[in-house]
């Protein structure tokens, strides 16, 4: 038995080596950016000669970068609220009620998720332009809600399918009103999916580039738009600091997802 296992692991070392290389390839860009961000010169250096917070100081003293950062948080926050406001009831409707064309509606609601974002951005550019919303925060939030809401919808719908409708039925039999069933049974059980749906809407808006690139103005530019301009036209070291801060945001998201996954596995129902 022991020899069989060791033959197997000996045979598998090329696979393991390849996999390790792919992991390095996947993580290296983030790591290198973080290391560069602690350099102490305006030219990027890898590895930096001396570690410092110089580049972070530049970032926190640059009004244009700070404005873009604040704008991204505002747009992503509003997008999150609006996405949840439309996706939550829609997911509830398609999960709990049967009606004419329900399957068709499911497809329809996630349609924007499979259309290339650049095509949506062209449409919004024409459309919001005619409404006089190009260059406004309102226009950005509307555009981002369109692409974020389908993902919130998918996550909440998946969660609702896990919540046993019998629990809701039991509450009803015991005399709870519809509102009470919703607030005391369905929503508490659904909470992880609601949080997940809100998080994905926030992150999608926060990372979104092409729509913001087309419809924001210099006064309403978001962080990705600012970054694109900086990478393309300037040789600003600030990009490294911003990238590291964004990597930190992604790390938090990864931790939340990993934690959520291990929580789910701890529950007896979901595996198998």
């Amino acid at each position, binding site marked *: 038995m022991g020899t069989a296992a060791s033959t197997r692991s000996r045979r598998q070392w090329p696979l393991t080596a390849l996999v390790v290389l792919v992991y390095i390839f996947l993580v290296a860009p983030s790591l290198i950016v973080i290391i560069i961000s602690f350099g102490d010169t305006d030219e990027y250096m890898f590895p930096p000669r001396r570690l410092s917070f110089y580049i972070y100081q530049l970032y926190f003293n640059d009004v244009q970068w700070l404005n873009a950062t604040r704008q991204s948080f505002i747009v992503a926050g509003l997008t999150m609220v609006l996405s949840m406001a439309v996706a939550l009831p829609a997911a509830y*409707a398609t999960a709990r009620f049967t009606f004419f064309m329900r399957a068709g509606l499911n497809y329809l609601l996630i349609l924007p998720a499979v259309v290339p974002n650049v095509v949506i951005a062209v449409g919004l550019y024409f459309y919001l332009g005619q409404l006089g919303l190009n260059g406004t925060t309102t226009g950005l939030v509307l555009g981002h809600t369109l692409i974020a809401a389908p993902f919130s919808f998918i996550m909440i719908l998946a969660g609702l399918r896990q919540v046993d409708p019998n629990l809701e039925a039991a509450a009803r039999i015991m005399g709870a009103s519809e509102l009470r069933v919703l607030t005391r049974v369905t929503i508490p059980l659904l909470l992880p999916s609601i949080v997940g749906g809100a998080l*994905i809407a926030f992150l999608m808006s926060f990372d979104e580039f092409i729509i913001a690139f087309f419809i924001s103005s210099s006064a309403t530019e978001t962080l990705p738009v600012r970054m694109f301009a900086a990478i393309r036209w300037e040789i600003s070291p600030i990009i490294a600091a911003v990238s590291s801060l964004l990597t930190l945001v992604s790390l938090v998201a990864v931790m939340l997802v990993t934690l959520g996954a291990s929580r789910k596995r701890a529950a007896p129902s979901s595996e198998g």
Partner: protein
Amino acid sequence: MIFALPMVLMLVLLFAAPMAIVIYMSVHVSKLSGSYYTLEFYRQAITDSLYLSVYWNTVAISVLSVAVGLLLSYPVAYHLSRQTVRVRALLSALVLLPFYTSILVKSYAFTVILGDDGVINQMIGLVFGESTRVSLLFNRTGVIIAIVHFVIPLMVFPILASLVAQPPALRTAAEVMGASNARIFWRITFPLSLPGVATGAIMSLIMSLGIFITPALLGGRRDMMIANLINYYLRETLDWQIAAALSIVLLAIGMIFVVMLMRLRGAQLFTNAS
């Protein structure tokens, strides 16, 4: 159903209406001398040799990146599927990190890594002497490396899902009957994982066909993809009709793959992706 109404309304106002305008723009001309409908822009969009070469770039770069990405994703997914649940969750974080990292951060990192004075060339210089340089940035190699990096997480998770879903008893049965590891893999594990492979590959293709940032920041002039061309006509030359027609062409190419994906997955288009 009344609860779905707000979202349906949003789709009509923010999706259907803008798309209708794009279609209208692509077939309608209004000049001082009068306005009329025409398919001229589509004729241009599918015959002009400049556009055809950009479509070819787009498809070639996407297909090559997805193929390379697949060759790297499958071993990772396979390796993950053989780990205990705890180890798998930990190692998955290494794949999730790039998945949740902004493509702008990654593009910036690749300009630093792949540049003539970048990390890779510094290492090459150390090994082969100072003057040795490999050109990796502002050409197709750079674009493909970055898109491969972008699509690997999109493929690992669907493949992993289809590997984990296989009943372990199948493997045991084959082992008991004396099948070698290689035979078990090629006759059982791999064929059963093909739906996951196809889902991941098609999703990655859809995503990379419309990509804008990577060719704009890491490519050269000859690596323009459809999204860059659309941006050029929409924002720089203000040829809105041709920009609209090109958008519809890109949409049509994308939809071919979406239909394939729907055939494959049924209604749960994305449920395994996140």
